[in-house]
């Protein structure tokens, strides 16, 4: 599977990372190489092997859907660069 420049552009946009136009062909080539590498997995014979997602014999824990924590407004806002009246304050983006 090979990735073209247009797909690379879309991928970069989805990842919210700015990639200049002239860097896109090299990026596309890198993606193609990675996908080629991954395709080696097709060589693995998995016939008769049950799917497994964990090495430990344990199901995911379930818990009661109840409030166990809260009223931490000052702690939550402690690392905000700017907080006002109990809210995060962010730069204005809508004119």
């Amino acid at each position: 599977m090979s990735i073209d420049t247009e797909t690379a552009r879309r991928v970069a946009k989805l990842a919210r990372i700015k990639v200049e136009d002239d860097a896109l062909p090299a990026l596309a080539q890198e993606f193609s190489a990675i996908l080629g590498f991954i395709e080696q997995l097709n060589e693995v014979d998995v016939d008769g092997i049950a799917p497994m997602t964990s090495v430990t014999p344990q199901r995911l824990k379930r818990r009661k859907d109840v409030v166990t924590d809260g009223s931490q407004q000052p702690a939550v806002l402690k690392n905000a660069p700017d907080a006002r009246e109990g809210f995060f304050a962010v730069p204005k983006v809508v004119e």
Partner: protein
Amino acid sequence: MTDLSKLTIASARDALRKGDVSSVELTDAYLGAIDGAGALNAFVHHTPEVAKAQAAAADARIKSGNAPDMCGIPLGIKDLFCTKGVASQAASGILDGFKPEYESTVTTQLFDAGAVMLGKLNMDEFAMGSSNETSVYGNAVNPWKSDDRELTPGGSSGGSASAVAADLCLGATGTDTGGSIRQPAAFTGITGIKPTYGRVSRWGVVAFASSLDQAGPMTKDVRDSAIMLEAMCGHDPKDSTSMDMAVPNFEAALTGDIKSKVIGIPKEYRMDGMPAEIEKLWEDGTAMLRAYAIGQGASTQTFLGIGWLVISGTELLGPMRDRMMVLAWALNLVVAERVISQLRTQNTGPDIRATAIGTPLGDTGSHSPTPDRVG
């Protein structure tokens, strides 16, 4: 008086209990050693006040005669662990100034057991790297050298490995997603273990790939790893993937007898083109296991590397991506996209950017960081 820098966790524990040394004395000695080892760039945030207070408390507890093994032991903590009120930025510029309002489960358990935090340790940015060269703090340096050149301590837990190897602490926390404890431990001649997934809580540890990440100890020898690992392990309701199983006494399991064990050695663990000296060490190690264990070090092709890449790549930026997408969707504005794009481009290193662009590997809808066992 004994050379405090040459102690191990086990010998320090015994000396503390006998009253031969106090945790305050030990801690002062290590704080001094750290001050003299700035060139290694292992410790990147120093917490002498925290250390001294913890050491004094540990001494009181030891005097009372009821102290756990880790009580009074000075440790370094990898920057990936959230430590309350102390900078925790995963060696990234994007978390500059972040001081968590909470404590990771692992550090909570260690501190509850009386361990002392000397400071935070260098690492690769967001634990992505194998040489500790992608850190916002600059490279960590291996205390071992063969000539004038500075050598890498490995990574991502490079600062942890360097600090333990240079006797700057008795042990350090590391984390391992695809070798980040084991490889730097090997590069610096110390001992490290990646525990079985689920043994150690991931809560409060900045995630890389959630179904592969595990925290573990990095120490001077196997006994120390056993002691420190026991203090780090245990079920944690805050991490749904943590195992609800009793934690054994790992130190008591160190009988030296491995006769009943079958030991497998994946082919990928031995690479082509290794220097003859290292190749010989590898073969000697394999021969030692053959001599003492019942299994014949069976070698199999496991496709470990590729499987790892697929899992880590798809899980890596899933959560970040989702949050960004929700934000972008909510504002539905090109402006927001521009702000995010610039933030992520300016405040992360080139490796993180390259990996982040791999995000759409996981672009199949909802993100499940902790899949349930199937069947």
